[in-house]
């Protein structure tokens, strides 16, 4: 068999197996490749780190099972960082029907109830239907929009929210998503009230947001698993994202090798396919 014939064969099963191995082996036996810290991630870290007692952080989330692997590590790393800042108040709000599950899971994983006081240091408002209208309502007057929080507590009973009415009182907003609700925050909070916005996104959503970042309309982006890994390193709490970076590296390398081999087959085979 000639090299051309060999390259021209269909290697689907072998490719799948190689990819599987390139993902699984580094997870079992980590290589420990250095994780680069992007400027977009460092900007968020610096902004969160500079928060003062009394500041208000809003973490919006549209995390669902499909994007869990990429975005949840970002969400929990930033939430941990916020919890370390004494006196900083945290509001969790969900834009997707599955998001409350992950918000509650993150609070449990970080032992929020043991470290902070609910209603004083943090609140979970839950899922609000209505997409952009929901975010607009939250920015305008959250007391007029909501009667109860996620657990059914009256909003008026949560002392933390006494002096927080809307976007003018939010110090920063960070939205975690793979869909359009990041844009909604830009429209409703940044454009109208000038609230500082940042995003935690899946890789495919980053190019949209990057245009806003370079224009100075958002102050940072946590870019997919790589951004999450960077943030974990910055807060000194390496987790699942940092562990996943070795697998991502080897998989990317495999893709590049496959592209080169595919093109070799194409050119050596006389550009037949």
């Amino acid at each position, binding site marked *: 068999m000639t090299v051309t014939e060999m390259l021209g064969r269909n290697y689907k099963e072998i490719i799948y197996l190689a990819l599987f191995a390139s993902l699984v082996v580094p997870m079992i036996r980590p290589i420990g490749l250095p994780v680069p810290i992007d400027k977009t991630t460092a900007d968020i870290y610096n902004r969160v780190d500079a928060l003062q007692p009394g500041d208000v952080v809003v973490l919006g989330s549209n995390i669902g099972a499909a994007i*869990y692997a990429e975005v949840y590590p970002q969400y929990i790393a930033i939430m941990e960082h916020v919890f370390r800042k004494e006196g900083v108040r945290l509001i969790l709000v969900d834009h997707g029907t599955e998001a409350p599950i992950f918000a509650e899971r993150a609070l449990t994983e970080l032992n929020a109830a043991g470290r902070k006081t609910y209603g004083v240091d943090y609140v979970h408002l839950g899922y609000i239907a209505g997409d952009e209208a929901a975010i607009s309502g939250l920015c305008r*007057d959250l007391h007029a*929009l909501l009667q109860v929080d996620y657990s059914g507590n009256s909003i008026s009973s949560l002392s933390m929210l006494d002096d927080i009415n809307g976007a003018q009182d939010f110090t920063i907003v960070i939205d975690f998503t793979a869909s359009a609700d990041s844009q909604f925050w830009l429209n409703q909070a940044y454009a109208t009230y000038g609230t500082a916005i940042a995003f935690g996104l899946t890789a495919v959503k980053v190019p949209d947001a990057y245009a806003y970042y*370079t224009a100075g309309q958002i102050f940072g982006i946590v870019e997919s698993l790589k951004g999450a890994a960077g943030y974990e390193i910055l807060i000194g709490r390496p987790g699942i994202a940092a562990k996943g*970076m070795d697998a991502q590296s080897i998989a990317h*390398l495999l893709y590049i090798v496959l592209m080169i081999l595919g093109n070799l087959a194409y050119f050596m085979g006389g550009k037949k396919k």
Partner: protein
Amino acid sequence: MSQIFKKTASAVLLIVAVVLTCDYFIKDATLRAVANDMNNWAVVIGAFALGLGAYSLTVRHTRAIYQKRTTWPYSALLLGTMIVFIGLGLFTGSVSSPQYNWIYTLIVQPLSSALYGMNAFFIASASYRAFRARSIESGLLLVAAIFLMLLNAPIGGVIHPILPQIGKMIWDLSGATGMRAILIGIGIGTLAIGLRIIIGQEKTPLGGAD
């Protein structure tokens, strides 16, 4: 009847649009209160839409089962799953209850992640079979893709520090600028269609051009 409905809907749309637009530019307490109320109606309608979606799904798939269409087992599975999840949520009072979490974490999350993760395998296969430098343009795309992949994985910097820098240059110069042009185009298009809807020239959102 349909014409009356459409005219009424057009009038409501016009009033809401004018109030919300004025509220953006004019700082007035009364106007703000009216705009807030209108905005909150949209949130309530959004919540109703979820219920309507569930109703519509139930009717459609019940019909499929009743008529014994070829896909009826899938419809039955969908309805069964929906009933279990809604029932569990109502029974336990929360989507964060251990029972709900158990069924979500062990069934929905792995299935959904697996479906999303399968893309990686399709991309791997496509990398070999389809990503070919058939022209100068596709060749440039191929080279850019390689550098961007090396930018997005730590291995790029390990192979050579200049590789991620080239990727970053491609990303900044062509990726961000191209996307900005697209976003500005979308913005202008949205503004134009919004104005057409407000002044009644665009009938599509109200159910057609007639």
